Structures are given as structure tokens and as C-alpha cells.
């Protein structure tokens, strides 16, 4: 085997791919070849490392030096200075703020040092297309361990004792789900991976599939052994082509190594996995709709019970878990349930992966122990709100969740405390919004989403969300009427209690949650015809503060409607009859002289 004195890890998560990491990687390899280092330095393409807004990022081992925002032309210096002479290229290091120190190695970044990685243990560290690298990191050891040393019931007991709850949203105890399926009488049984990640702003499942596909395969095989199934399906949305491609390669490699297929580890246990590509409908993340879609039917939900544990795929007992849940299984088997249950809170064990998106400095993927306060996630790891703006709320749980305002920032994040605040953990998407976001408009965005994604099978969801959306559209256009809030509440309650599936039952949540914490914003829109955040176009008028205006003329230059006039070095004015409310003047003004009513 060849020894390399240095490994250069290039992040090839979707975020870095879209910021051109491929050309950086190619330039790196070219420069390594030019300098005759190709036998000494190995370039490894990994899955998502997490800090997506810093991409393209590169980590160089053995020291773990972390370079960010690289351009192809930076790579020559990295090769000649760092790889050849051992000198760190300081200008390419990360600096958190103007006054903070530069971080040389990745573990000096707040972003990394506060994390505990279990589901993401390999993501961003190994080459996802190399089963060898997965094996080197204890891959397939857990499968080997249960097959050669433990009974199926013992395996289920491990998962039960760990306290692991489903990471897909509902938080049902995983071990219990396996046990129900194991005890169901019918045969054959099935194992399903739900990789139909549909929440706006969520991308943890994609990152795990792209960055560490074998962890999901191994866990599904463990479950197959525990419940007595020989067949697994991964249902992944077609919008994730890279995940599909890497999963296919991983399955083929595992078959080649005899880690899937017949008589695994010389036992009588057989297990194989097939991929099913879904069309990317939000409702297909709902388990009964997902199962229908695998069967080749329309992706529509059906009433529960019977639950999939009793009657799932083709009417047979089925365990269906989310990607992140699967990725947590092998470490639990290897390190023991106690190790896992010691992390987290009383009712929420282990760690949770969150996808940070929206108005936050460090957008990206993180994993922290359950019970980590929101403030730590958003400000310490996430780096706070950009451009000196104020934090307003964090939206969790996607369309089925809700928002949490500033006064609850010290809440520890676990399943139960989020429910108390009127939202849910969900799959772990976190969308951060700042003072410039109108909460009525935010509710409208989510409702538009569920309205469009409603499968239409039941009337409350199909018609109810449509009516709610119409009311919200009226309110943001300044045509809200007294009584609209009460009507929204009535409709919400009605839809919650009568919709067929989880999607419909939670569809009104964005409205209920914003009403709970930001009712005054709804009232301002309806009664005063005013948008407090200053973003609902119909309700906003732009003015120039004559004291703050320096007369630089930048606003008038950028006004597409020629609505701004004024002499140089003297205060300008906006003609409200011509103004089209595009907000260009406010964005361009360097003196904060433009304000909204």
C-alpha cells in the first residue's frame, strides 16, 4: 500500500459543488503534479463538511489546516508553500470576525469545536465512494458484531435502551418501532429508508447520503437482521441525483465485499437493498404515501392505523426510518446504548443534525447534543445574524413546525421543549429570519408551499389550505378585514382535526405559530394597513430622511422609475406617485437615509 504524507480533503457537498469546488480540485491536482508531489500527497473528495457558506473548502492533514473560499488560482500557492515547504498560507485561513484570530486548523473554528458528530461522524472526512475508507473508520463492524454475537432481540434491546427517537420528525422511539415489526406475524418483512427530504431549507439527509452512504446501508442490514427482513428499499427524491449515484456505487461495493447479499458473514442472513427514486413530492415523505409510491401507486397517504409496523409495504410489516436515524445506528451498536443515552436530555437522547439556513452568518450543517440552547446554535456555532441586523425568529420543523421568537432563545433544543413553544424538531431544518422579515409573509410562504404540495386526497387539506392562503394574500396586500384572524384560527383548527395525514394536520402550523408569537404584526396589517417589517410592498412607502441624506445621488441613479430627485449634496426626495416600491434606494443608500413607513 502506498503511503501518503499528506491528505488534502476537498469538500464536494452540494454547496461546495455549486461554488465550483471541482475546478479548485482540478487545479490542486494539476499543481501537485507539476511539483512532482503526486506520490506523496493524496487528494480526497469528501461529502459535505458543514460550513457551506465558506465553500469551496479544503482541509489538509496531518495538521488539519482549514482553507476556505478558494479559487483555482489559490491552489498554486497552497501546493508550493504548504505542501512543499510546510508553510501555512495565512491569507486563505478563516477569520470569524474583524477582531477575532484566524483559525489555522478546523478544530479552532467555533463552528466545529462545539459539535458532537455521531450521524455525521464520517461525512466530510471520508471519500464516500470508497468502501475501504468506511471500513477503516469501523464500517460494517456493527453489522459483523450483531450477526456473530447477538440475537435479533438483543439487537432490538440495544436500540431501545439507547433511547434513540426517529429523526424524521415525529420522534417515535426507534427500538419500539423495530420491536413492533419484529413481533408482527406476517412475512416477508421490509426495511425502508425515508430519504424524501422535502422541508424547505433542510438538507441533512442529502448530506449524509452523499457523504457517508454506507452508514445507511449497514444500519438497514442490522435492522433487517433484527426484525427478520431480507429486503430493503431506499426511497430518495429525484432532485438528489448525486445521492442516488453514490448510493448505487455503495450498494454495488457492499455486494462485492459480501457485506450485502447472501449469507452475510457466513450466517444464514441474506439482505439486499434497492433504490426507488421518487418524483420529489412533499407528501411522499409521509410514510404511508411513500410506501404507496414504492408500490408503484400514486403517492397518496392512507389513514393510520394500521401502522406500517403491522401493514406496510405490500401489506407486510415494515420498518421505515429516516436517513439520519439510520446513520446513528452503527455507533450505538459499537459503543453501546449507555454511551448514546448519556448524551442529550432526559427525554431526547443523543445528538441532532441541523441545517442552518436563512439570515445567519454560517449557513451549513451541524450536529450537536440534544438540549443545546438555541442561542448557542444560532450565535456561537451559526455566527449570528449578518449585516448587524437583529435576530427576529427561527423557524423549525419546516411547514409542519413553527417559529420561535427572541425571548425563547435560551430554550434547550429537544423534542419536548420545542413542542411547548408551539413548534417541532421536525427533521432539523432551521431557517433564521431577521428584523426585515414580515412574519405574515413568512406564514404565507409556507402555506403556499403546502397548498401546492397537497396531494388533494382529502378536502380539508385541498380546499382548506387554499382558503387560508387567500386570506393571507389579502392581508399582505392591505385588504385584510377585521375578523380575518379569527377566521384563520377557525380554519386552522378545522384542518388540524379533520385532515387525513400528517401533512394536512400540520399545514396550518405556520399560521398558528406566527399568530401565537407575532399576532401584533397581523393586526398592524389588518387594522393600520401597515407592515411593521417594511417588506409587504403594498403597505410600504419609502421616504428619505433629509437630515441623514448627504445628497450623493446613488438612490436616484438606481431608481428604475425616476421617482427620486434632488440637487447634488442636498437632501433628495421620493415622489410617491412614481415610486414602484422596489426598495433599490434603501438597499443602495450608504447613510441609512431611506426609511419605510
Amino acid at each position, binding site marked *: *500500500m*502506498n*503511503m*501518503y*504524507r*499528506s*491528505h488534502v*480533503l476537498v469538500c464536494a457537498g452540494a454547496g461546495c459543488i455549486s461554488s465550483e469546488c471541482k475546478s479548485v480540485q482540478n487545479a490542486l491536482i494539476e499543481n501537485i503534479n507539476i511539483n512532482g508531489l503526486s*506520490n*506523496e500527497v493524496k487528494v480526497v473528495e469528501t461529502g459535505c463538511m458543514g460550513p457551506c457558506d465558506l465553500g469551496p473548502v479544503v482541509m489538509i*492533514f*496531518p*495538521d*488539519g489546516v482549514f482553507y476556505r473560499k478558494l479559487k483555482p488560482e489559490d491552489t498554486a500557492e497552497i501546493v508550493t508553500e504548504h505542501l*512543499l*515547504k*510546510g*508553510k501555512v498560507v495565512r491569507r486563505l485561513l478563516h477569520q470569524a470576525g474583524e477582531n477575532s484570530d484566524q483559525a489555522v486548523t478546523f*478544530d479552532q473554528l467555533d463552528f466545529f469545536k462545539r459539535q458532537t458528530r455521531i450521524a455525521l461522524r464520517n461525512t466530510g*472526512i*471520508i471519500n464516500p465512494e470508497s468502501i*475501504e*475508507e468506511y*471500513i*477503516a*473508520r*469501523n464500517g*460494517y*463492524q456493527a453489522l*459483523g*458484531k450483531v*450477526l*456473530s454475537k447477538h440475537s435479533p432481540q438483543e439487537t432490538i434491546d440495544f436500540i431501545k435502551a439507547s433511547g434513540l427517537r426517529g429523526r424524521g420528525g415525529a420522534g417515535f422511539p426507534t427500538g419500539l418501532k423495530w420491536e413492533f415489526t419484529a413481533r408482527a406475524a406476517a412475512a416477508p418483512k421490509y426495511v425502508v429508508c425515508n430519504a424524501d427530504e422535502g422541508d424547505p431549507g433542510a438538507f441533512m439527509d442529502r448530506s449524509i447520503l452523499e457523504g457517508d452512504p454506507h452508514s445507511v446501508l449497514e444500519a438497514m442490514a442490522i435492522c433487517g437482521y433484527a426484525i427478520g427482513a431480507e429486503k430493503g428499499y431506499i426511497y430518495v427524491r429525484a432532485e438528489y441525483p448525486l445521492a442516488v449515484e453514490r448510493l448505487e456505487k455503495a450498494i454495488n461495493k457492499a455486494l462485492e*465485499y*459480501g*457485506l450485502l447479499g447472501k449469507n452475510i*458473514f*457466513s450466517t444464514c442472513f441474506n439482505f439486499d437493498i434497492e433504490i426507488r427514486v421518487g418524483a420529489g413530492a412533499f407528501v411522499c415523505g409521509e410514510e404511508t404515501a411513500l410506501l404507496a409510491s414504492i408500490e408503484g401507486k400514486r403517492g397518496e397517504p392512507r389513514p393510520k392505523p394500521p401502522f406500517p409496523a403491522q401493514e406496510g409495504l405490500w401489506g407486510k410489516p415494515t420498518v421505515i426510518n429516516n436517513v439520519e436515524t439510520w446513520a446513528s445506528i452503527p455507533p450505538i451498536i459499537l459503543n453501546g446504548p449507555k454511551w448514546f443515552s448519556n448524551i442529550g436530555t432526559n427525554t431526547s437522547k443523543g445528538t441532532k443534525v441541523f441545517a442552518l439556513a436563512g439570515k445567519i452568518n454560517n449557513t451549513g450543517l451541524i450536529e450537536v447534543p440534544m438540549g443545546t440552547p438555541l442561542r448557542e446554535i444560532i450565535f456561537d456555532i451559526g455566527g449570528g445574524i449578518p449585516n448587524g441586523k437583529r435576530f427576529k425568529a427561527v423557524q423549525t420543523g419546516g411547514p409542519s413546525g413553527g417559529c420561535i421568537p427572541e425571548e425563547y432563545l435560551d430554550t434547550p433544543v429537544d423534542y419536548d421543549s420545542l413542542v411547548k413553544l408551539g413548534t417541532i424538531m421536525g427533521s432539523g431544518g432551521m431557517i433564521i429570519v431577521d428584523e426585515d422579515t414580515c412574519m405574515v409573509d413568512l406564514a404565507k410562504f409556507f402555506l403556499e408551499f403546502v397548498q401546492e404540495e397537497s396531494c388533494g386526497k382529502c378536502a380539508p387539506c385541498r380546499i382548506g389550505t387554499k382558503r387560508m392562503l387567500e386570506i393571507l394574500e389579502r392581508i399582505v396586500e392591505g385588504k385584510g378585514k377585521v375578523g380575518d384572524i379569527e377566521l384563520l384560527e377557525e380554519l386552522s383548527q378545522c384542518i388540524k382535526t379533520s385532515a387525513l395525514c400528517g401533512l394536512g394536520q400540520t399545514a396550518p402550523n405556520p399560521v398558528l405559530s406566527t399568530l401565537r408569537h407575532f399576532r401584533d404584526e397581523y393586526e398592524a396589517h389588518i387594522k393600520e394597513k401597515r407592515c411593521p417589517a417594511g417588506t409587504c410592498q403594498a403597505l410600504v412607502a419609502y421616504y428619505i430622511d433629509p437630515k441623514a441624506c448627504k445628497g450623493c445621488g446613488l438612490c436616484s441613479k438606481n431608481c428604475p422609475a425616476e421617482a427620486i430627485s434632488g440637487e447634488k449634496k442636498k437632501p433628495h426626495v421620493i415622489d410617491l406617485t412614481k415610486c414602484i416600491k422596489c426598495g433599490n434606494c434603501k438597499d443602495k443608500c450608504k447613510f441609512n437615509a431611506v426609511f419605510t413607513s
Partner: protein
Amino acid sequence: MKTLEELDSLREKLQADMKIREKNNNITVNVSMGTCGIAAGARETMKVLIEEISKQNLKDITLTQTGCTGSCQHEPLVEIKKGADKVTYIKVDRKKAREIVRRHLMEGKVVKEWTILD
């Protein structure tokens, strides 16, 4: 893959290559690669070290490089660190490099006559 033991031995073999991405390596071999070092032939020294360490399949060794350490007249310099212990070899040519791998890294004996006293 027929048994857990087979998986274990494969893992052992593969781990040597991955150890570099963990920070708990046992022994660090550091080649000084300033302009002075490179001019004195440190690149050759590095190549030989890589060759020998991989040929002997030595584990728990991190081979890395630094810039000029200030004693340019002694280049090429190779520093071997294990915990707090540090040994610095001077004027390490290809032949010396091979010997250092054999005697120091494999047999655990410091080749005193090639070292500099810190």
C-alpha cells in the same frame, strides 16, 4: 468477507492510511523544507522516508514538513517526535534517511552520531 475477523484484519490494514486524518498519532517525523532545506536535498530525503515507511508498513507515524528552523547549515534536518521526546537528525541524505527509518522508527534506537543536541 466471510467473518468478523476477516473484516478486522482488513480494517487494520486500511487504517494505516486513514490515521493521518486523526490527531492522535504516536510518532511525528518532520522534515524541514525551507528554501535552504530544499536546496540541500530535503525533497530527496522526504521521498526516501515515504518509500521506506510505506515499504515497512509502519503504523502510527505522521510524516510532515515545516519551514526553515534556523539551522540552515545543518540541512536537511529531520526531527522525530514522540510525546515530549524530540530527536533532531542533521544532514540527512538518502542513505541516512533509510537507516533512520530502520534503526530509529523500527528498532527504537536513536542514531546518536547523526543528531544535534537540543
